[in-house]
């Protein structure tokens, strides 16, 4: 079976259109990020995230009342798909070995006698730790990017390398735009997804670039632009199929995975789609544009 036969889609001739589309998407993402900002999780802000499960249902108002009593009236309260409460509170100091969860469970036991409850999840991050985590995450992202840069610059010439890196920025920005647009909580897991997405989306760019290099060597008679267009068309099938198999899995995670994995799957899904788009429409076209403006002296 074949989904995509021999195509001859004018990717290169129509490149301006794709540049405009990408430019607009990036601009929109930037605006969304600046206007809405990110919804940072406790990993980065410090504070507590508690998930409380009751044997018998409790109304959100009653829960609010309890939070008021423990001096956390301003805490974020949310009911998840399982009917559990998600409570987000700012970092605060408690006397002795007490933490927000112990203070809350005492108050819950007093306020709802006879109703069994369990604190299913407690993520409490002190201000010092969250600051350190920010540093570590930033370091990991920088290390990851640097690693990719070094690898790409070793394996490709300067122009393709730059193209791959630009598409990487493109993919990241748009994915982050979606994260901000949908108000997804930015946790370490989400950052991991962004970084993985970056690593994976470079894959497709590499496949296309590899093919162009090979074809440029083989098809000496044709112009660089034709070669590029043909190479993109020739790799189109595999670019789409490989992304498709990953999408099958990320979609399965998105639908069936545990709550904290859903955000991860969301980022991977969006990132894979955007990454595939940019490998087909942007990377080679960027190199073509560069070649046109500043022709290289000798054909690669």
């Amino acid at each position, binding site marked *: *079976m*074949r*989904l995509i036969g021999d195509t001859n889609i004018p990717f290169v001739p129509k490149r301006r259109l794709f540049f405009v589309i990408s430019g607009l998407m990036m601009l929109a993402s930037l605006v969304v990020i600046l206007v809405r900002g990110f919804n940072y999780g406790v990993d980065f802000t410090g504070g507590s995230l508690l*998930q409380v*499960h009751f044997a018998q249902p409790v109304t959100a108002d009653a829960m609010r009342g309890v939070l008021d009593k423990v001096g956390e009236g301003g805490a974020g309260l949310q009911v998840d798909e399982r009917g559990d409460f998600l409570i987000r509170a700012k970092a605060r100091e408690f006397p*002795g*070995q007490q*933490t927000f*969860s*112990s203070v809350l469970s005492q108050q819950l036991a007093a306020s709802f006698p006879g109703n069994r409850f*369990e*604190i*299913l*999840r*407690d*993520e*409490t*991050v*002190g201000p*010092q*730790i969250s600051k350190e985590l920010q540093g570590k*995450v930033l370091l*990991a992202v920088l*290390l*990851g990017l640097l*690693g*990719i840069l070094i690898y790409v610059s070793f394996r490709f010439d300067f122009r393709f390398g730059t193209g791959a890196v630009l598409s990487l920025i493109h993919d990241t920005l748009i994915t982050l735009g979606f994260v901000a647009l949908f108000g997804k909580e930015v946790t*370490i*897991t989400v950052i*991991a997804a962004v*970084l*993985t997405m970056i*690593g*994976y989306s470079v*894959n497709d760019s*590499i*496949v296309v670039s*590899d093919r162009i290099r*090979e074809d440029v060597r083989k098809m000496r008679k044709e112009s660089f632009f034709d070669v590029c267009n043909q190479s993109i068309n*020739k790799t189109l099938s*595999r670019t789409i*199929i*490989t992304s498709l*198999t*990953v*999408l*099958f*899995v*990320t*979609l*399965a*995670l998105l*639908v*069936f*995975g*545990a709550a*904290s*994995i859903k955000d*991860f*799957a969301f980022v991977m899904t969006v990132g894979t789609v955007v990454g595939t788009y940019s490998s087909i429409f942007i990377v080679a076209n960027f190199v073509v544009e560069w070649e046109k403006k500043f022709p290289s002296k000798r054909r690669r």
Partner: protein
Amino acid sequence: MKGARIKFAVFIAAVALGIWSLIPTYQLYFVLPGHERALNARLTRAATADDSARVQVEMAEFQQHKASIHKRSLHLGLDLVGGMQLTLEVDKSKLSADEAADAGDRALEVIRNRVDQFGVFEPIIQKVGRDRILIQLPGVDRERAKNLIGQTAQLKFQLVQEERATYDALKTLDDKLKAAPAADTGHPPKSDTAKKVKTDTSRLAALLDTARKDTGLTAVGQAEEGTLLGYVRTVGGDFAVDDRDYPEFKALLERTRPYWPAGYEFLFGPSEAHEGSPVRRLYMLRAEPEMLGSAIKDARPAPYQGSEPGLTNTWIVSLKLGRKDAAVFAQVTGRNIGRRLAIVLDNVVKSAPVIQSRIPDGNAMITTNEVNPDEARDLAIVLRSGALPAPVNIVEERSVGASLGTDSIRRGILACLIGAVVVVVFMVIYYSVAGVLADFALLFNLFFLLAVMAGLRSTMTLPGMAALALTIGMAVDANVLVFERIREELRWGKTVMAAVDAGYDRAFVTIVDANATTIITAIALYFIGSGPIRGFATTLTAGLVINVITAVFVTRFIFDWWLARFEVKKLRI
């Protein structure tokens, strides 16, 4: 085909190695839980003490066996089995430079002791940085464990000042407060303190009553704002404050600290219920302790055996002092018959019994007022393992309930299975026979991934399961690259053999390139170092490396073998 034989042998050896590496994991999660249930059932059924003892011996052997298997298995992270991860920081602010130098190590030692005695299966306790301690405890009662780990456990025996003197001291302090009122003179008590005075007819109550009349407060239900005595009531012959007033009262008392009688300090008891409302007793103690907790040789939980009616059926911790310290204790008790000796744990007065007679044998006890033995048991552990050199603060806590962990595993496996089935079916439909081949490769991939992770004793976490799912999606990528290339080569009119050769050769570099970037990012993620993400990074890295190997060597080998064996002339791909 001599080369093929060797390749085949290597492959079989790898599979055998993989199975061998997964055996302990299989035992741990699929065989041992059944054994454990059976043993537990036998223990509850045990008719005689002899039977019970025999089962308990078997139980101990079983636990040892389990521990040794656990060491060789794929571990599940706390986010999957449920449990608690704490990061503690040793508060060195009150230590001298000398004491601070090894405070972290000493705290680690003490906490390790406590956790060991608490009896948690396979805990992790390690120092992180200079004065942080990371603790991972699978499946425990969190509040209890936190209390056990975090107690500084500085035990002191201090003499209690007499009631009259305490009252006078408080009165003097009130005078000082009146002379120098601060901007904020405190709020009126929230409790109905004054009303309660009437119910207590002790000498102290009478004293307090007079005091209130002296200050011009006659009406019931009022207490003078901004005075200590305004908050104070009496509980069973002790001064006490209502728990709801405690923060304000404590702040007020703290303000008068410079005027406290020299050599004395004020401390509170734990919160306790008295006539339906929570109160804390207030004690004035001689600041110089008569004895320190380091004198304790042994501490054991025991049921209360004495005659005080409020304590029947409750648990105590019975303390045994060393020989030399017992002599000191005998002296102290002998000199102070009739006075009260407070037992102070972490600046909370646990109890303050009257010394009835000289205690020569070095036995003492701490009452818990609890019918449940847990507190007495934990306190005994804490006292036996010694005091922490300094208080520790919980700077990070991540806990997951066992039921949530089970739910995560269930949903993770479901997502992986559904993702895998869709991918497998798609590959067969899209590439027919070659697709089946890629699916075999996928199976081997998952098998080798789990085997390698078990072999490396790595930990499977929730993000790790996501990484597992991702490797399923990416595993077939390499084969897709190869198959697409073979299709192209076939279209160009190459023979089947030549097309397969060219397909693998051409795609190899691309496959390595493509996986390398993802591996680079996964390695970078490893450095964030938080447990779950580390699980993600190792799973993904291992998965991708194995992907490349199986895709390039294993499927190629099977492909070649299949083409040669059946002399395939026409390839449908």
